[in-house]
């Protein structure tokens, strides 16, 4: 309690700097993702004359070219587009599934249904994501949709547990009791009372999880079980670059740095939101 006001103050200020940085980065990435076809300086056709042009040498190819002479900047822009699309949709999907399961589970606790659902999340969370994804992606054709589904498969238990614990906490609260006494029905309590607290609790998780999904998507593509060429993802650009680590190590460095910046921006936003919204950091007065 004693340290909290100070922690909170410093937290708020640093959160704001990081938050601003995060918002700028993420906004930039979003803009690129949406407008990639308009912003891209080149098209994606190979140009054997320009094999592995090093970055920062030529103005028209600021980030160099790849092994068959395609502009890397252009390819990265399209890569961001893929990343953002897949990561965002997988998080939304996971949050939806998680919310439904969590609410059902929370309201049926204690009970068999709740126990089964929670054990299910146990299994899901304990299983190495890569192995799960590999099995799933050999089962289905790895396109954007199936990758998004596979990613959300690894994420929904997190949301389910969070929603469940929030529901269980709220279920016995006085304000729910008060609402019941005023004659509020079950549906109204779900939507107007319980639901109102869920979104703010989830809010900081979204950027953090989108960041995680960006990494996971690129990982799958890097291991050649995700997005396959000719479609572009940051992961498969890096997979491509892997062949040239000895001679042209800049090639794998660039997409990696871009990825880290993007993820960092998302994490900044998530962390700052967590600090700002954390009720335990709320100042208490003492007599």
């Amino acid at each position, binding site marked *: 309690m004693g340290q909290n006001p100070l922690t909170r103050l410093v937290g708020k200020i640093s959160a704001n700097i990081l938050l601003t940085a995060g918002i700028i980065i993420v906004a930039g990435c979003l803009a690129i993702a949406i407008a990639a076809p308009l912003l891209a300086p080149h098209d994606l056709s190979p140009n054997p004359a320009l094999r592995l042009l090093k970055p920062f040498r030529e103005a028209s190819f600021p980030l160099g070219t790849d092994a068959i002479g395609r502009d890397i900047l252009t390819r990265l822009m399209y890569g961001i587009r893929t990343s953002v699309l897949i990561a965002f949709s997988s998080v939304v999907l996971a949050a939806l599934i998680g919310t439904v399961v969590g609410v059902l589970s929370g309201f049926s606790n204690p009970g068999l249904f709740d126990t089964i659902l929670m054990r299910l999340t146990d299994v899901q969370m304990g299983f190495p994501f890569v192995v799960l994804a590999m099995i799933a992606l050999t089962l289905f054709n790895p396109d954007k949709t199936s990758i998004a589904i596979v990613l959300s498969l690894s994420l929904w238990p997190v949301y389910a547990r969070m929603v469940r614990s929030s529901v269980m906490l709220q279920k016995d609260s*006085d*304000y729910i009791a*008060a609402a019941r*006494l*005023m004659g*509020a029905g079950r549906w109204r309590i779900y939507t107007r009372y319980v639901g*109102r*607290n869920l979104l703010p609790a989830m809010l900081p998780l979204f950027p953090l999880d989108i960041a995680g999904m960006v990494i996971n998507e690129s990982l799958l593509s890097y291991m050649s079980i995700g997005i396959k060429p000719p479609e572009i993802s940051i992961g498969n650009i890096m997979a491509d670059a892997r062949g040239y680590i000895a001679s042209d190590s800049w090639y794998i460095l660039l997409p990696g740095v871009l990825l880290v910046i993007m993820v960092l921006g998302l994490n900044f936003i998530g962390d700052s939101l967590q600090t700002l919204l954390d009720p335990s950091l709320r100042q208490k007065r003492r007599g």
Partner: protein
Amino acid sequence: MPTGENSVVMSCENISKSYPVRKGLFRRVAGQKQIVRGVSFELERGRTLALVGESGCGKTVLLRVLLGIEKNSGGRFLYRGRNTETMSAAEQREMRLKVQMIFQDTLGSFHPRMSVREALEEPLILSGVKSGSERMATIETVLGQVGLSPLYLTRYPHQLSGGQRQRAAIARCLAVAPEIIFADEPISALDVSLQAQVVNMLMDLQDDYQLSILLVAHDLAVVRQIADTIMIMYLGAIVESAPAREIYGDARHPYTQALLQAAPSIKKGLTDENFTVHLKPGDLPDPANPPSGCLFRTRCVRATALCAEAAPAPREVSPKHVVLCHFAQE
């Protein structure tokens, strides 16, 4: 003070509540934890009934059962003479609105993300007031009644002080024009200088609207001014129930006497009385494993062999003064 013939608005008969105690690998039921033991009372129009007991005695559970937040394990209760279990859904809805509650933890009884205005509108919406301006008019009226400025309508619960929040909570109850108010320790979380304000306000409202109040408290000083009848609860059972004046002047149950003795007071300070507790040292027994015979005997300074053998039957020592003790007459 209400006069003339007293009409009973709510009564309950032999209400009990127990929870199963589960044990072992398969969570089988190993016993019953009896929290409320056969409580009966009548609440009269325009009167205040006080329920006094220390924490863990089951008074909050009793309230929750009475309000239907939890289901009773035994007994029945009647609202205006009708059994609530056999009521139609419409009648139950109507009763719901007529019985309102003030919670002990005012902060917890408001949704943290609802403004005061939304919170006050909620009961009106639910009771079917369609027009927004009508709702606002009602809200302004009740705010006036509790002396809270409409400026606070846009605030959120945590932005109000304890006293302001308690007023908002009372306003929320009044919005639906209830007949009965259950107040669970409405002033124990408040500062001393605000307690009197709230007690006075409750008395004013009672006089103006003939409200019936069931007031739960943990000490006898707080209910002194407002209660007409007082029930003392110990380990889920009512050990003494009497008109207020008799509780303070002629308490018969040793537990009531201990409570009176233990309550701090300025007057005792002036007469240099020390703190004394007329109780055997020890803790409240586990409700899952109550003592044999009289529930109170493990703490009672007057307990004899008889108390361990037989549970005392309620005795009426004077009109409406009922005591659950073998030695009530002495």
